[in-house]
C-alpha cells in the first residue's frame, strides 16, 4: 500500500498527464464519421511511429557495433512507420477531397 502511494506520489504529474491524454484521445475522435475510419486509423498509425525517437536516442549513444546495427534497423523500421503512414493517409484523403459533410 505504502509502495503504491509512494509510486503515485513520485509520478503524480505524469499519471495525471496520462489520464488527461487518454481521455482526450477518446473525446477527440468520438464523433468521426464511418467513412473516415480507415484514414484515421492510418493517420494514428503514423503517430505512434514517434517511437522512432527512442531508436534515434539508442543509436546516438550506441557503444558497440551490434547496437549500432540494431539501432540502424530500428530507425529504418520507425521511419517506414512514420513516412509510410503519413503518405498513405494523405493519398487516401485525397480520394475524399471533394466530399463535404
Amino acid at each position: 500500500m505504502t509502495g503504491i502511494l509512494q509510486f503515485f506520489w513520485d509520478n503524480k504529474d505524469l499519471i495525471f498527464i496520462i489520464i488527461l491524454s487518454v481521455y482526450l484521445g477518446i473525446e477527440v475522435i468520438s464523433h468521426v464519421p464511418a467513412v473516415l475510419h480507415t484514414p484515421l486509423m492510418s493517420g494514428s498509425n503514423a503517430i505512434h511511429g514517434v517511437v522512432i525517437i527512442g531508436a534515434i536516442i539508442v543509436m546516438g549513444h550506441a557503444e558497440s557495433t551490434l547496437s549500432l546495427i540494431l539501432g540502424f534497423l530500428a530507425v529504418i523500421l520507425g521511419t517506414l512507420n512514420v513516412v509510410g503512414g503519413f503518405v498513405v493517409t494523405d493519398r487516401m484523403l485525397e480520394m475524399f477531397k471533394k466530399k463535404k459533410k
Partner: protein
Amino acid sequence: METFTIQNSILELSYLGASVLFILGLKKLSHPTTARAGNLWAAGGMTAAILFTILFHEKEGASIGNIPWILAALAIGSFLGWYASVKVKMTAMPQMVSIFNGMGGACAALISLMEFPHLQTELALAGDSHMFTGPAVAILLGLMIGSVSFAGSMIAFLKLDGRIGDIKHPILRIVNLTFLVVLLIALVIIMLIQPVSGNNWPIYLFALAALIYGVTFVMPIGGADMPVVISLLNSFTGVAAAMGGFLYDNQAMLTGGILVGSSGTILTILMCNAMNRSLLNVIIGAFGGASGSGAEAADKTVKEISLSDSAVLLSYSQKVYIVPGYGLAVAQAQHLCHDLDNLLTDKGVEVKYAIHPVAGRMPGHMNVLLAEADVPYEKLVEMEDANNEMGNTDVVVVIGANDVVNPAAEDDPTSPIYGMPIIKALDARNIIVIKRSMAAGYAAIPNNLFYHAKNRMLFGDAKAVLQKLVAEIKSL
C-alpha cells in the same frame, strides 16, 4: 531526470509542441473537411520532434553521435516508406497500413531488446538484487506489446493479401490463452532474476513467445475482420510507444503513444459498432451463423431476369441507383460499373451510387474503389440521403452487395444484423441483384430481399455480367 540547460529546455518545448500537434492533428483527422490538414499537422509535429531530438538530445552530457548513420537510416526508411505508399494500389491500402504498423511494433521491440542489457548493468552497479523497477516494467511491456503487434500485423497483412487463409480450430483459443498467461508469468519471473546473470536468453525467449502469441492471436480471426484487428494492433503499438516514453522520460513519445492507444481503442469499438458487432465477437471470430429465418428460404422462389430485359429496363428508367458491395471489389468491376453509368447517363438516365458505410471490407472501401474508377464524388450518395430518394427511384442495381441491403436488419429481431442501418432497396420500384449465386455474404445469413416480388436476380461474376450488360445496352 536531467537538469536544466537551454538545450534541454528547447528540446522539451519542441516535444510539448509535437504533442499539441498530435492532438490537434487527430482532432482534424476526424472531420471530413479538415482531415488532410490534420494529417499534415501531425506529420509536422513528428518532423519537429525528430529534428530537435537529433539536434539537442543529451544523455549524461553527451549529445547524439553517429549522426551520419542516423541520417542514412532516416533516408533509407523515408525512401522505402514513401515509395511503397505511392505505388500501392488504393484497394491494397489496409495491407500497407498493417505493414507500417508492424514496423512500428518491431521498432519498439528492438529498442527494448537493446535497453534491457543497459538496465542490467546499471542495476548491477547499483547493487540491486532483482530487476523489479519501473524501467524494467516499461522495457518488458514494450518488448511484449511491440512483438505481438509486429507478428499480428504481419499475419493480418498476409491474410488481407490472400496469401494465407483462416485457421479456425477451437483449440487455438486455448493455445492463445495459455500463451498469454505464460507471457505474463515470464514477465514477472524476468523481473525477479538478478540483474547481471550473464546470459540474456530469458529475454530472447520472452520476445519469441510474444511473437508466437501475436501469430496465434490473429490466426483464427476471419480475414474479413482484419481492418478491425489492424485498428486494435495499431492501438497496441501506441501503448508500446508510450512505454518508450516512460523509459526515456520523453513527453512526445508518451503523449503520442497514449493518444494512439486510447483513440485507437475507441476507433476499434466504433468500427465494430458500425457493423453491429462487439469487439469480443470479432476476436472470438463468431458471427451469428444461421439465423432463425434460414429455413424459410427453401419454400420461396427466386425470379431471374435476362440481360436484354435488364438492358431495356435500365435504358428506359428515369432514375437508377447502383448499390456497390464487396463483390464489386472482388470482381474488380469498378471500371465497368462506371462504363454502365456513363452509358445510361448519355441516354438521359439519372445514375447515382448509394454508399453504405460498411459496404466492402474496410470503412470507406466503396469510396476508394469508385474513386479509382474516376466516378465523380457528387454521384456517391451517403446512405441516409440515398434512402430518402429511394421512393422515386425506378431501378436499384445491387452489384455484389448482400448484407448491406438485407431487410432482416429492419424486420427480423432474431437476426444477428438486426439494428444495423441498411440501404432500403425495397423502397424502389424495381430491384436487380447481380451476384454469382444465392450464397450468403460476410454475415453468413440468408437475404429475403432476393425472394421479394420486386426483385430480379442477374446471376454471374460482376465483371462478366457488367461486360455483357454494357454490350447489350450499346446494341439497343
